[in-house]
C-alpha cells in the first residue's frame, strides 16, 4: 500500500508538492487541472437532495466547492498539520468568514495590537457595524490578553509574525489564555508560512492565511484560507451556538455533532461562504498551488537575504532602528529563537533618522525595489506605511501597530542579495 499511515509521515517539501494533488481520476492528468466549471451535474434528484442536505460528498456549485480550489484547500490543511481548510477570495475574506462563524451580534474578541493595518481597520471599524467588538492587546505581554477577556469574548487573534514590524509574541502563553477561557486561538500565519512555523503545533485552533503572499509567492493571485486544527471542543461551553445548535437552514443539522473535527470548516463553507460568496477563483487556486510547490526553496532564500539586508540596515548611519525579530536588538528575538529556528519571514520595518520625509524619499528613490503595497513576492518590495497601508489609522494607532511616521517597511525578495543592498545603499544616499 502506498497510503500514508500518518499524514505527516512525508516531509514538508514532499507534501508541498503532493498533498491534495493525486493524478486526475478521469484523465490521469498529473498536474491539477483548472476546473473552470460553475456547476456540476447531479446523478438524479435524490443525489441532488443528498448533496444540498450535506448528506453526501460532492460538488454542486463553485461558490461552495470547486475541484481545483479543493486541492489547494487540502494542500494548505496538510502543510499546517490541520484537519481541513476552506479557501476564500482573499485573506480579508477568510478573516471575515472565520469571525462570522464564531461571533454573534454583541460578541467580543481580543486581537494583538501588532497586525496588518487592514486587519486593524477591519476589526476596529467595519466589524463594529456588525456588532462585533475588538480590544487590542500586547503580544509581548500575554497577560494583557487575559485582562481583556469578557464573558462574551469568543476568540483571541494574533499574527505569528506581525506585519509590518516583525513582532513575535509568546504564542504558547497566549494559547494558554485562550484554552483557559474555552475559546479558540486564531493565528494569522501569512508572514511565517507553514514552512517556517505551524501554529497548530503550539496551541492554535484556527490558522488563517492570505495566500496572496508567500504561499502564492509570485505576486500574481489573490487568495485566503481558513484552517481548522480539528482539536477544539466546540461543545465544552455554550459560547458557539453556530457549531452546537441545530441549523434551521439545514433541517436542524448540528455541525459539530455531524462533522466532528472538521465541523468548523463545514460551517464556514456551507453557511458563511454560501451566504456571502467570496469564493476563490480556480485559476488563482492553480497559480497558488504552483507557487506552494517551491515554498521551501523560496523561504530559505527569503530568510537568507533578509538576514543580510537587516544587518546591513542596522549598521547604516542614516537608519535609526531596525525592527526584525532575527536581530539580537529586537524585543521579539527571544520568541524568535524559541519558535522560529529556520527564520521568521522577510518582512520587517526600519526607521530613518530623517523621519517621514526621509521615508518617502527612500521609497521613491529605489530602482530595483518596487514601491507598492504587498509583501511575500519574489521581488523585493518597499513601502512607507504611514502614507499608504496604515494611513486610515490615527497616528496613535500607527505607532501602536509599529507603523509610525518614520517607519519604512520592506519585504525582501529572492533576487541577488548584493543587488538588493546596493539598491538600498544608492537610495539612502539620494
Amino acid at each position, binding site marked *: *500500500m*502506498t*497510503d*500514508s*499511515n*500518518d*499524514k505527516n509521515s*512525508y516531509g514538508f517539501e*514532499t*507534501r508541498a508538492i*503532493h*498533498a*491534495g494533488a*493525486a*493524478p*486526475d*481520476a478521469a484523465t*490521469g492528468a*498529473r498536474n491539477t487541472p483548472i476546473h473552470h466549471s460553475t456547476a456540476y451535474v447531479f446523478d438524479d434528484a435524490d443525489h441532488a437532495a*443528498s448533496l444540498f*442536505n450535506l*448528506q*453526501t*460528498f*460532492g*460538488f454542486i456549485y463553485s461558490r461552495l*466547492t470547486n*475541484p481545483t*480550489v*479543493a*486541492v489547494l*484547500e*487540502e494542500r494548505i*490543511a*496538510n502543510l499546517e498539520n*490541520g*484537519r*481541513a*481548510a*476552506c*479557501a476564500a477570495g482573499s485573506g480579508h475574506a477568510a478573516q471575515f468568514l472565520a469571525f462570522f462563524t464564531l461571533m454573534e451580534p454583541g460578541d467580543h474578541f481580543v486581537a494583538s495590537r501588532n497586525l496588518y493595518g487592514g486587519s486593524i481597520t477591519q476589526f476596529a471599524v467595519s466589524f463594529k457595524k456588525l456588532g462585533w467588538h475588538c480590544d487590542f492587546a500586547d503580544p509581548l505581554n500575554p497577560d494583557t490578553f487575559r485582562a481583556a477577556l469578557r464573558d462574551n469574548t469568543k476568540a483571541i487573534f494574533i499574527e505569528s509574525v506581525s506585519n509590518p514590524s516583525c513582532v513575535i509574541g509568546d504564542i504558547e502563553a497566549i494559547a494558554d489564555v485562550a484554552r483557559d477561557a474555552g475559546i479558540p486561538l486564531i493565528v494569522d500565519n501569512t508572514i511565517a508560512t507553514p514552512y517556517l512555523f505551524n501554529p497548530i503545533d503550539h496551541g492554535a485552533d484556527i490558522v488563517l492565511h492570505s495566500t496572496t503572499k508567500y504561499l502564492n509567492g509570485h505576486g500574481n493571485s489573490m487568495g485566503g484560507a481558513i484552517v481548522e486544527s480539528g482539536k477544539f471542543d466546540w461543545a465544552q461551553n455554550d459560547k458557539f451556538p453556530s457549531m452546537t445548535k441545530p441549523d434551521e437552514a439545514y*433541517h*436542524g*443539522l448540528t455541525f459539530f*455533532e*455531524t462533522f*466532528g*473535527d*472538521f465541523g468548523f*470548516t*463545514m460551517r464556514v*463553507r456551507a453557511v458563511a461562504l454560501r451566504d456571502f460568496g467570496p469564493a476563490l477563483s480556480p485559476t488563482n487556486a492553480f497559480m497558488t498551488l504552483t507557487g506552494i510547490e517551491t515554498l521551501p526553496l523560496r523561504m530559505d532564500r527569503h530568510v537568507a537575504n533578509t538576514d543580510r539586508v537587516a544587518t546591513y540596515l542596522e549598521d547604516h548611519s542614516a537608519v535609526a532602528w531596525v525592527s526584525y525579530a532575527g536581530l539580537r536588538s529586537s524585543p521579539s528575538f527571544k520568541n524568535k529563537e524559541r519558535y522560529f529556528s529556520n527564520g521568521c519571514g522577510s518582512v520587517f520595518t526600519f526607521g530613518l533618522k530623517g523621519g517621514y520625509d526621509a521615508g518617502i524619499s527612500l521609497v521613491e528613490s529605489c530602482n530595483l525595489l518596487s514601491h507598492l503595497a504587498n509583501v511575500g513576492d519574489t521581488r523585493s518590495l518597499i513601502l512607507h506605511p504611514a502614507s499608504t497601508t496604515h494611513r486610515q489609522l490615527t497616528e496613535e494607532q500607527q505607532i501602536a501597530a509599529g507603523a509610525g511616521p518614520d517607519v519604512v517597511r520592506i519585504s525582501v525578495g529572492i533576487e541577488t542579495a548584493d543587488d538588493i543592498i546596493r539598491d538600498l545603499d544608492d537610495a539612502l544616499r539620494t
Partner: protein
Amino acid sequence: MPSYPDTLIRRILDETRTIAMVGASANWVRPSNFAMKYLQHKRFRVIPVNPASAGSEIHGEICYASLAGVPGGFDIVDIFRKSTDAGPIVDEAIDLKDIKGLKVIWMQLGVIDEAAAARAEAAGLTVIMDRCPKIEFGRLNHELSWSGINSGLISSKRPRLRR
C-alpha cells in the same frame, strides 16, 4: 483520539459486505440515517438495529430491536450510540460473534469505550473507535478531499474511485 493505520481501515472496508448499524434512525436529518444511505450507495448492505423503529423499514431494510434479532450474518457492528451505551452492545456482539460471522466492532465519531474495546479484542474482534465508516470511506476514496479535508493521502497513482 485513537489512531489507526489507513491500511487497516481500507482492508476492513474492502472486506465488508454487511453492516449492522445499532442506533440507525428513521429520522432523515439524523447523521445515522444519512450515513446508512451513503453506505448503501457504496454497495454495502446496512441492517438497522433500533428498538424504537423495530419492524418498520429504513431505506428499504427492516429494522430489528436487537443484534440477536437480525436473521442473517453481518461483518461489522457499527455503534451509533453514546459512549456510555456502548458496553452492553459490544458484549452482545461478542456473544454473537461466531453465529453472525462478525469480525469488526466499529464505534462512531465521539464513541469511545476502552474497556469494551479490550473485551472485544480479547475475543478476537478488530475494534475501531471514534470514527465514522462513511467519513473513512469518503476519505480513502478521495471524496472527503472535495471539501478541503486533509485526507493524509499522498500517491502518484491515478485513483480508482468506487461509485
